Every structure is written in structure tokens, then in C-alpha cells.
């Protein structure tokens, strides 16, 4: 779907409408501090969760392997080589 030129062009055009609208409304507004986070108390030193049990980890791995798109003969996740590395 992404590669259809017509669709991409149409989407691009409509995507830019709201940016144009924003550019229009911000012109006469004052300069302010930027609000990246709504809370000033960013908990960067939060503690890690307790390590899960061996049983839980095995069950997680089993469930994860079930949903991965491709696997090798040994059951390991198999992914396509990234285009940029070729």
C-alpha cells in the first residue's frame, strides 16, 4: 500500500494541511518554555523490576517465539538483513 504513488501523493498533501494550519496560528504567539514532559518529576533513577522466575521467563520465551514471523531450525528468531547493511 505504501508504494502506490497516487496514494502516497494524496496522503502527503493531506498530511501537510495541519502543519500549514499550525504555522498560521503560531505566528503571533509569544515565546514560551518548551513543555516536553507534563511532569517535572521524571523518575530516571527508578529501580528495575524484580527478576522473574525461571518458569515465567521460559513461558515468556515460548509465547514470544509463537508470534515471531520467521524462525530457523533451532527455533531462533530469523530476521531479514537490514537494507542499510548490504
Amino acid at each position: 500500500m505504501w508504494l502506490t504513488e497516487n496514494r502516497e501523493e494524496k496522503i502527503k498533501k493531506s498530511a501537510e494541511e495541519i502543519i500549514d494550519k499550525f504555522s498560521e496560528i503560531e505566528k503571533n504567539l509569544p515565546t514560551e518554555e518548551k513543555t516536553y514532559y507534563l511532569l517535572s518529576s521524571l523518575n530516571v533513577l527508578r529501580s528495575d523490576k524484580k527478576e522473574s522466575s525461571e518458569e515465567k521467563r521460559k513461558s515468556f520465551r515460548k509465547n514470544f517465539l509463537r508470534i515471531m514471523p520467521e524462525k530457523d531450525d533451532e527455533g531462533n528468531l530469523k530476521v531479514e538483513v537490514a537494507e542499510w547493511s548490504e
Partner: protein
Amino acid sequence: MVGISTLEKLKSIRRGDLTAVDHIEEKIDEIKDRDEGINSFLEINQDSIEKAKEIDRKIEKGDEVGKLAGLGIGIKSNINVKGLKATCASKTLENYTSTYNAVVIERIKQEDGIILGMNNMDEFACGASGETSYFGPTKNPAAAGKIPGGSSSGPAAAVASGLCDLALGSDTGGSIRNPASHCGIVGLKPTYGLVPREGLIDLSMSFDQIGPLSPDVEGAALLTEVIAGKNNTEGIMHDVKSVEYMDKINPDLEEMKIGISPKFRELTDSKIMEVIDDSIDFLEGEGAEIVNVDLPNLEKAMPTYYTILSVEFFSATRKFDGRKYGHKIEDVCGDEVLRRIVRGKHISQKEFKNQYYQRALQVRTLIKKELEKALNETDVLVGPTVPKLPHDIGEDITPSDMYAYDYLTTPANLGGLCGGVVPAGEKNGIPIGLQIQGSTLDEASVLRVMKKMEEKE
């Protein structure tokens, strides 16, 4: 349509007048019988009857049961429930089965709530109509032929049609409040950082908030009590251990100052304003003082919101590359998801000039300050939820017209405030919800006004 109140249902299960098994079996049968015409559920939880049996055994033995004992709860499909599919209503994740529970799900289970299944939604929460799901649009059980609103379309429609007792949605720019209004039910967007987001598949990390949809105010208050409170493994949360609302929602409005803004009227269809004005008259008659407040840049919230959201969404969706699970998002997503990705990419590329995103973060500060000032002068702000009546399902409307639904709900997300919606009346058979916005962590005042509104005829 929705029968007895949430609290009466809970009491009935606790007393043993109604067994949890009978109650949940009835809900599942109703979903099977009636949901084909609504499309509010994407998957039913096959373990729900077993969980109901556990609760009945506890009650029979006289053991203590949790706050939500025996209630059937629908979950928006962007919240992870172990063993169920969290598809975000997208082909991208059509085969993605959750490997863990979101923190809110663990909390619901601890309080003996029963997960009934996964609800439909707009694809990746990108939409205000409930029409963009890969699994087909959700219908509005309260207004035939009209959109139910979005993006929490499935949770709202499921609650409105009585297919579940309560539901969890997420609100990034109005996604709980908008469908609550269109479907004639109660919805609450809690303060940003009050409810854990761990396990929510994010749309926009600085706006997203999980919250309840309910047939009544007490149900919304109860579910918020269960899911709210600090999660120590999250980076951005208020330092609040737990919240109690049930004893604070006495609907006494004496000494309460309610703010209204002329901007609400400027932006809103006059047919909707008739119902809103009637509600404000009712609240004044019940003892509240009505005060005019100035929100000079309210209409600028929506384009500011979409500028920030698109950048955060572009970043959030880079993990959907189809390598570890699912499909690559750009290969399979719908138009609105692609539009937001394209826009986010475009803004990010242009950002060396600090032209859009960085500037939008400044405008966010301005709007946040204006809302805080208005709420310093009053206890809550009251007005319409959506500025126009819902369109017909399938009607072709432009992206700009779709975004216009968000004019009145995005300000609370920019400011990180709380906001609730309660039915206010109808116009041409279409429900209209009153929006009540409150200061950071002042859900109690919002819920008080909502509770009073339930007395309005």
C-alpha cells in the same frame, strides 16, 4: 439499555443473588447474539468463565473479594492482556498475542474484575469516528447509522449496549470522552501520570492516558480507583500511591465554582449548545456559581496537538518493522495511520529549523498556562465535548473535518488535566455529553459534578 447500576450489580454478586458465572455467561451469550451488528468486540476471553467460578467459590466460602468482583470488563485492543490479541485494530498486529499483562490489567485482576475480551477501536487509535479499524467500523448502539466516535469506539459501544459492565479505553486527544459523548455513557480521562501506561501500545507518549468507560459515574470512579496509582518502574508518574473517590462524590454543589468560556460557544454547533446551556442552568440551579473564564487560545490546541502527536507517533511506530512480530506498518496500514507517519517524518526532517515540533512545545506551554489560570479561578470548567453532531457511518469527510471533532478535547491532553463526560441530553435522537475538566489530580471535583448531572432529567 444498560439496566441496574454498577454498584447494585456488585452488591447482587457479593450477596450471592447473582452468581459471577451466570452473569459472565449471560454477557458472553449477549456478545455472541448481538455484537455482530455492533462490532464492539474483536475477541472473547475464553478464560472468563473459569475466573468467574473462582470468584463464586470465594463468595461461597465467605472469603473477601475484590472491588470489582464478578464484573465483566472490555479492554481496548491497544492494552496488553496476556494470551489475548492486542492488534490495535490493525493488520500490522493481526497475529500479535500479548506475552504479558499491562499494569492496569494486573490491578483489575487483583480486584477480581473479569476480562471479557478485546474491544474494537480506530486503527492504532488514529481516528475520532470508530471507522478506521482493519476489522470494520463499530456501530453506535445509541444512535443508529451514526458513528460511535473514537478512538475507543469498541469500549464505548460495548458499554452503551450493555455487552460489558465497564471498559478500559485510552485517551490521547479525546478518545475516551468523544465516544462516551456520542454513545450516551460516562467516560473519564484521568490526569496524565495518574494511571500507569506500562503495557499500553503507545500512540503519543506525552498525551496517552488509560481511563474507564462506564454506564454510570460510580462505575467510572470505582474502576479509576482500581487502576490509578504510581507504578515504580515507570518514568513519568505522579507520586500518588492510591486514590479514593467513592466517598467524595456526594453531589453537593454548594460553594462550587464552575467556569464556562465564550470560546466553547464560538467553536460549537448551536444545536449542541442548547443542550449544554440547559445543563449549565441545571447546575446553577443546584447551587453552583457560574463564572466566565478567558481561554484566548483554545482553538489553537488542536493543530498544536497534531503537530506534537505526529512526531511522537512516527517515533513510536518505528518498532513495527515486521522483524520480531507482525507486519511492517507502512506496508499494511490504513490511510489515517499512514498520514500521521508521513506527517511525523516530514516534521522530523524539517526540525533543524525548530520550526514545528519545538515551536508546538512552546504553544503547549501557553495553552497549559491559560487552562491552569482558568482553573485557579474556578473548581472545574464545563462545556461541550465535541463541537459537532456525529456524521453518518461511511460518509466521506476530509481529514480536516475529522480532526475538527478534537477541538474541545485536545486542550486537556496538552495541559495534562483530567476530564470527564456525562450524558447531558439528546438532539435529534443523538446523545450529547457534557465535558467537565478539572485541575491536575482533581478527579474528585470532576466526578462530583458528573454525579450531580445524573440527577438531571
